[in-house]
Every structure is written in structure tokens, then in C-alpha cells.
């Protein structure tokens, strides 16, 4: 635990002493702000129209018109940005040779993986937390339902965690950060769009593919439903990739 904490602190220090975390967070907030402003603008437009045509007003809510699409948009932004947080985790030490020293210290692979992964997850949590002022603005000027917002954030966080685990795994595969980022992005994108095939493949396969879709599992959270199905999905993706990462570190010793 002590050693995991040491790895964690070292990684956190790296993120915040180098421009990495700042750049990723800044871009994320820029895009998030843009999407928020945009969605709010459309919501205002729709509200004005609803005032002239009260029949439409019933279906209009801050949750469904602003928060839900915002979380959906952020999901795509995260797909692009999170690989940048994880790409260096193992690849950089592989390249610099620091891995050689690290794995001759009395530290288990699991401690190293957990420490690094937790650091990336922390940066991600900070990033996500910095969008909370938008919620505060909504709450100040409007009356959004708190439930779906909370569950939406939980869902987005869990989805991001799964992405980060995937990225940690791809970073452990080689010494190129570029390849780590590209494969993480590609794999994440595949998880995002895999559900698109559902309509025209045999229903059995379609159901499986639909369940594999990362967005599919986010929908429930965005509606305010926390389903164990979705929790288990994100948790298993996370554990699966961290486990693969441990296998890779172990097998790298035999291959190298």
C-alpha cells in the first residue's frame, strides 16, 4: 500500500509538474464549455418557442435538453483526450529504461499498475469536477432535477475509468506513446460504435454487440437509472484491462 502510494504520488507529480494534465484539462474544459453554451442556447431558443406554443412546453426540461446531451458530448471528447493521459504510463518508462530499474525494486506489478492507474483516474476526476460549475449555473438560474445529474456524472466517471484502464493496458504493450494513444483511441471508438451493427446482424450477436456498446450503458445513467448491469459492465471492462496489463508486464519478462 505504501509502495502503491509512492507510485501514485510520483505519477500525480508528473502530471501536474509537466504540461500534460494542464493541456488535457484545458482542452477538455474548452470543449465542454462550448458544448454547454451551445446546448443552453438551443434550450433558450426552444423555451422561447414553447412560450408561443405552450403545447410543447411539457417535454422541455434542463435535464433532457442540456445535461443529457452534454454528458453524451463529453463522452466523445473523453474518448479523444483520455488516451493522452494514459499513453505515457508504461511506454515512457519502457523507452527511457526506467522500467528496468522499477522492476528490480521490491514492488509487485499490481502495486505499480494500481498506482499509475489511480493517478490517471485522479486527474480525470479533477477534470470532470471542473465542469461542476455548469451544474451550479443551471441550478442557480433554473431548476434541474438533481438525480439524473448525479447519476449522469457517476456514469461518465465510470465510463472514463474503463477508458483509462484500456489506455493503461495499451501503454504497457510497447515503448511508443504514440501507438499507445492511437490504439487506445481506436479501441475506445470501436466500443462506442459497436452498437451500430445491432439492426442488421443476427439478433443473438446483435444483443451481445449492443451490450458491449459503451454509450448504451451510459444511457441509463443519463436518465437517472443506476442499473447493476451498467455498473458491472464498466467494472468488468476496467478489471479486464488492468488484468491484461498485469499479464503483459509479466510476459514482457519472458519475451523481451
Amino acid at each position, binding site marked *: 500500500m*505504501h*509502495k502503491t502510494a509512492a*507510485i501514485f504520488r510520483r505519477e500525480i507529480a508528473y502530471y501536474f509538474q509537466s504540461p500534460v494534465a494542464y493541456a488535457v484539462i484545458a482542452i477538455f474544459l474548452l470543449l465542454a464549455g462550448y458544448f454547454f453554451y451551445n446546448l443552453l442556447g438551443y434550450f433558450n431558443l426552444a423555451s422561447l418557442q414553447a412560450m408561443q406554443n405552450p403545447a410543447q412546453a411539457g417535454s422541455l426540461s434542463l435535464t433532457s435538453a442540456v445535461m443529457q446531451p452534454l454528458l453524451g458530448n463529453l463522452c466523445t471528447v473523453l474518448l479523444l483526450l483520455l488516451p493522452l493521459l494514459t499513453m505515457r504510463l508504461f511506454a515512457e518508462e519502457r523507452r*527511457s*529504461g526506467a*522500467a*528496468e530499474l522499477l522492476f528490480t*525494486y*521490491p514492488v509487485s506489478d499490481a502495486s505499480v499498475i494500481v498506482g499509475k492507474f489511480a493517478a490517471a483516474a485522479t486527474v480525470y476526476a479533477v477534470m470532470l469536477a471542473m465542469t461542476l460549475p455548469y451544474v451550479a449555473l443551471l441550478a442557480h438560474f433554473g431548476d434541474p432535477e438533481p438525480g439524473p445529474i448525479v447519476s449522469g456524472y457517476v456514469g461518465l466517471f465510470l465510463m472514463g475509468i474503463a477508458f483509462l484502464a484500456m489506455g493503461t493496458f495499451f501503454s504497457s504493450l510497447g515503448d511508443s506513446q504514440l501507438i499507445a494513444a492511437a490504439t487506445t483511441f481506436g479501441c475506445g471508438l470501436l466500443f462506442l460504435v459497436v452498437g451500430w451493427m445491432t439492426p442488421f446482424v443476427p439478433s443473438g450477436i446483435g444483443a451481445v454487440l449492443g451490450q458491449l456498446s459503451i454509450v448504451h450503458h451510459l444511457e441509463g445513467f443519463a436518465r437517472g437509472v443506476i442499473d447493476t448491469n451498467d455498473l458491472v459492465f464498466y467494472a468488468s471492462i476496467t478489471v479486464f484491462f488492468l488484468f491484461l496489463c498485469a499479464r503483459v508486464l509479466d510476459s514482457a*519478462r519472458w519475451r523481451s
Partner: protein
Amino acid sequence: MLRAKPNRCNFFLPGCPARGITVRAGAGAVRAMIEATGLGKRFGPRHAVRDVTFSIGAGEIVGFLGPNGAGKTTTLRMLTGFLPPTSGEARVAGFDVVSQSMEVRSRIGYLPETVPVYRDLTVSAYLEFVGRLKGIARGEQARRIATVVDACGIGDVRGRRIGALSRGYRQRVGLAQALLNDPDVLFLDEPTVGLDPKQIVEIRELIKSLAGRRTVLLSTHILPEVNVLCRRVLIIHQGRLVADARPEDLRARGQGTLRIEVEARAPQDTLAALLARVAGVAAVDTVDINANGDARARVTAHDGDDPREAIVAALVAAGIGLRSMSVASASLEDVFLELVTREE
């Protein structure tokens, strides 16, 4: 080629800490700190290391020699638990490097060939990080760091970022991290490569000062380093161990016949002709002029003969002033080159 100066023998310099080891090793009370049995590593079809067997007792400083690509680094990586062997086994400090890797890792210090320290950290922050990973108790941490910082002479750069340090200092930081857990066994992979001569001397002094208390396996392809530091040499070539001996024994291998260097005040031709007539001299190898303008000849004696008195007598009889005479010992380079080129 560097030729060891006659009459100079680094191993018995007074005050050389290596002497302490001789006594202990001779006492027979040492237990093996590094033990390799039939150790081998294959990368696909290529055998990087094959069937390497040796045993190193506590407190020994052993030189691990071999040309580049001979398998030195691979062997060290197996002994440090970074790479598992594909055949044979190794024990370090009594623990198996594969099945008891954590036990081994907590008792060793390792300085890899390229010191891969984190460039963005300061020396202090880096050593604290390593200290935690090595599991040094919180209360001991500061004291241990102070000790190694002092021993490695990096006190004045503690607050500097490692990336901004010179190579020599970075090497010392590497050595400091290796020493941080007060290891029983130290593995140093070419610790002086790429350093300037002054830094080389400093690092060697530092390594020398570790003698006696720790077992050190020092990989190098720089032969004088072995002369200065080690009481025992392992030579590896093409993945196989080709020699395991004391440096002086290795040199003795090249000394079946006596080679004598004579410097005298005489024309070169005269000296050569005179020496060739002396009984016991098999051949006059080279004759040249030394820095003082004297003629210098190297002669080879007949096997088992020692014609030094005869040479002196002949020179005196001819009225030639003898300036110096010495036995040229075979250098470690000669033996090393012979061992590693024999099979090719």
C-alpha cells in the same frame, strides 16, 4: 594497447580495501551471495547466455568482463530478477531469483548500464521515491538518504533536477539509488562508461570504498577497471563463461615465458646484437628509442630461463650503461583478448 607497467601491482597496494577481502575469502567462512547454476537465456533461436555457472562469496568484488554483446547485461538482468532465465537457476543472497524475486529485490542494489533516472525529479525527490519503493521505513528514510548522498558526493546537487545534471553526477545518483536500501549485493553494469577521466576515478574510488561489506558484481569491458577494483574476474564470451580466476592468475597464463625490457645507453643495433648473443635469450622482439633517448629492447627468454643476470653481465662487459631492466608482465588485455578471440 595499454600495457601494464612492470613492477606495478594494484592488488597489493597498501591501504587497498581489497586486502580485507582476501583475508575473509581465505578464511573459508563466506557463504555464496551470488550463485548461478547452468544459467541460460534464449531469445528465440539466439542464446544470449548459456550454461553459466559461478559462485561469489560475501564481500567479494568480482569483475564481469566480456566484449559488447557477450551476455553481461542479460546475466545481470537475470540475477536482479528483471528477466527470468530460460534454463538453470540463480540464487542471490540465498534466495531464488524467480520464485523468491521480492526477497532478492529487497536485498540488492542495481545500477543499469544507462542510468534511467526520472529526469523531471530533483535528486532528493527521486531518492525519496526510490526509498519508498524499496520499502525503507519512514523513520529511517531521511538517515539513509543522507548516508548515500554523502557517500556518493551528491550533496551539492540535491535540489537540482536530475535531467539538468552532468553525466557523472547522474551516474552517482544512479549509484546512490542502488545503495539506498543498504543492499548486501550490488550489481553494477558498466558504471564508468561515458564518464570523463576524473569522474571515472571518483566512481572507482566510491566502488572501492564499498569493498568488504558488500558483494559486488561489476560488469565492464574496461580492463584497467578490473585491475583497480577486483580480486576476481569472470570473463564471458558469446554467452559462455570462458574464465573465472584472479586477475594475477589470468596474467600468469600469459607468462609461461619471461619477457624482459632493457633500456641502455647504446646505439639500437649494438644493443640488439649484444642481447641476441646472451645465453638464455630466445629472441630480441623490438628495439626502439625511449623518451630519454636511450635504446629500449624487449627480449623473450627461453622457456624456464631467467637471463637477467647474464644480460647485466654482458652489458657491463661491453661497457654499456644499463639504465633500467624490468620484467614485462602480460597485461590483462593480452589474456582477455586471447580468451575472447580464441574461438573465432
